[in-house]
């Protein structure tokens, strides 16, 4: 189907020094879906310094252009400077839809972009459906209790997509032209000064990207036990680790591990919850997982109501046995 006015999508890539953040491919997947369904096209914008690794990683997905704004002032993403560049590019190329994968990067920057463009915005979109010349967007609200179908007025629409709801784009071949964007350094607002960025060290995959996630809750008493039980089980399965808010608040796990309504949303093939009660705010971030396993000593714990496989037991006894048996096989 061809839209009367086919959209011009602009995907904002998330890149770091060492390359592209993989969640970006979910936004590329969404943009390509919309472009194909409407006869529109999509461009990708990469901002930062250096950007070469990210630009290379974005080749082959069918973008009409890869715009590149490279400047040392943009080495660290700050909302004001990035928003400034994004707004410039969006205006210059007449973008009608701006999108990115939902993450702390895009949540920080895109609402600021929307305000500067006087555009409506939707966060954490799980589906985009072209309807006539308009669109219906699905998104979750109320900690995952409600799915809302929403329309957006106005010539420019801004939205972030939930990475777990859109399959990562697959390469279709071809090279997208790389178009440098001249960054007017003097016009950057520079209102946010970044001192340090401390990445939480992790030898494991990110929970939003992993096939298997092992997640621990308040049952785990300290960081050493978390590493031994949750980390230990994750390692034999090649999995990522996650946790409930309770452990982050207690300082047992870093904030980067929080899964839930106000943390990360994950939907792996297999999610294993260890000593997690299943509060609605936690479920909001994992209940779309394909297979859910719960291990909890309370047979009435709400997580059992959504678990495919439930085992009532003490994680301190069950998990070492699980790890031992998995190692043997």
């Amino acid at each position: 189907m061809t839209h009367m006015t086919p959209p011009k999508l602009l995907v904002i890539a998330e890149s770091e020094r060492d390359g592209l953040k993989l969640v970006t491919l979910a936004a590329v997947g969404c943009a390509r879906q919309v472009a194909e369904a409407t006869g529109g096209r999509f461009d990708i914008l990469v901002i930062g310094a250096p950007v070469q690794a990210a630009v290379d990683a974005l080749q082959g997905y069918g973008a009409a252009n890869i715009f590149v704004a490279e400047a040392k002032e943009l080495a660290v993403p700050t909302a004001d400077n990035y928003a400034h560049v994004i707004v410039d590019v969006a205006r210059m190329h007449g973008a009608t839809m701006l999108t990115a994968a939902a993450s702390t990067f895009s949540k920080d920057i895109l609402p600021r972009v929307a305000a500067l463009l006087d555009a409506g915005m939707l966060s954490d979109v799980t589906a985009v459906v072209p309807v006539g010349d308009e669109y219906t967007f699905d998104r979750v609200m109320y900690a995952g209790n409600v799915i809302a179908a929403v329309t957006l007025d106005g010539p420019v629409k801004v939205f972030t997509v939930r990475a777990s709801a859109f399959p990562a784009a697959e390469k279709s071949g071809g090279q997208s032209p790389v178009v440098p964007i001249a960054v007017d350094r003097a016009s950057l607002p520079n209102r946010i000064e970044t001192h340090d960025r401390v990445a939480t060290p992790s030898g494991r995959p990110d929970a939003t990207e992993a096939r298997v996630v092992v997640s621990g809750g308040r049952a785990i008493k300290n960081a050493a036990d978390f590493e031994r039980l949750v980390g230990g089980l994750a390692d034999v399965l090649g999995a990522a680790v996650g946790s409930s808010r309770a452990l982050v608040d207690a300082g047992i796990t870093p904030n980067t591990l929080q899964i839930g309504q106000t943390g990360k949303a994950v939907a792996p093939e297999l999610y294993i919850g260890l000593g997690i009660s299943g509060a609605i705010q936690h479920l909001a971030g994992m209940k779309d997982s394909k297979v859910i396993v719960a291990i909890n000593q309370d047979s009435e714990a709400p997580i059992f109501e959504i678990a495919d496989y439930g085992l009532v037991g003490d994680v301190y006894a069950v998990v070492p046995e699980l790890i031992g048996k998995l190692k043997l096989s």
Partner: protein
Amino acid sequence: MKILVPLKRVPDPDTKIRVRADGSAIETDGVKYTVNPFDAIALEEALRLREQSGTVEILVISIGTAVCQEQLRAGLAMGADRALLIRHDGETDSLGIAKILAELVRRERPDLILMGKQAIDDDSNQTGQMLAGLLGVGQATFISRLTIAPGSGRATCCRETDSGLETVTVSLPAVVTTDLRLNEPRYVTALGIMKAKKKPLEEIDAASLGVDIRSRTHVTRLTRPKGRSAGVRVRTVDELLQKLREEARVI
């Protein structure tokens, strides 16, 4: 110093949310309302800044119908100095709310706008960033620590990001949005409630502000997500491993 703290009225996080059969709205019967938890964290932080430096005025603002007075009274009872209810009945979205707040910032000239990162009803996580954009000021989102050296005119914040922690400094005025680890809000005391009764709560009609707050987003239908049902209980680790290997085939 003057701090503006928006307080949104939202369903209590412990209430069960149900969608009406016709998909037009959520069931409001029996729903308890509260101050958005992230906004309570913002107000707590403002109160702590006042306790440290003494000369801080805290203004709480809510946008909505008359019932939002409840949340403003709760904010006054926690310790805010004065409250402003912007009366608005009808559709709103983050951009409209941000435009109202921007107008109030122009009128009130606060040094700091401290607000929640996310309203737990719409889960948008947008308003603070939009407000900062409209005002052309700095922003620090998802913060877990806030330091304002007296007289410095700058706020240094620790931000929680997907990959770790980040420290940023913004010049005031600025918009700062709170994450869960910033503090634990105090409880309202009986004395606080008594005192709140005497504090000023002013009402302004949103239409009189002269800003275009037409919502650009329109919710056309609400549905319940497809539910999951409880699966099977396994008794032993061996049984679990067998199911995961042979039935679910995920390991």
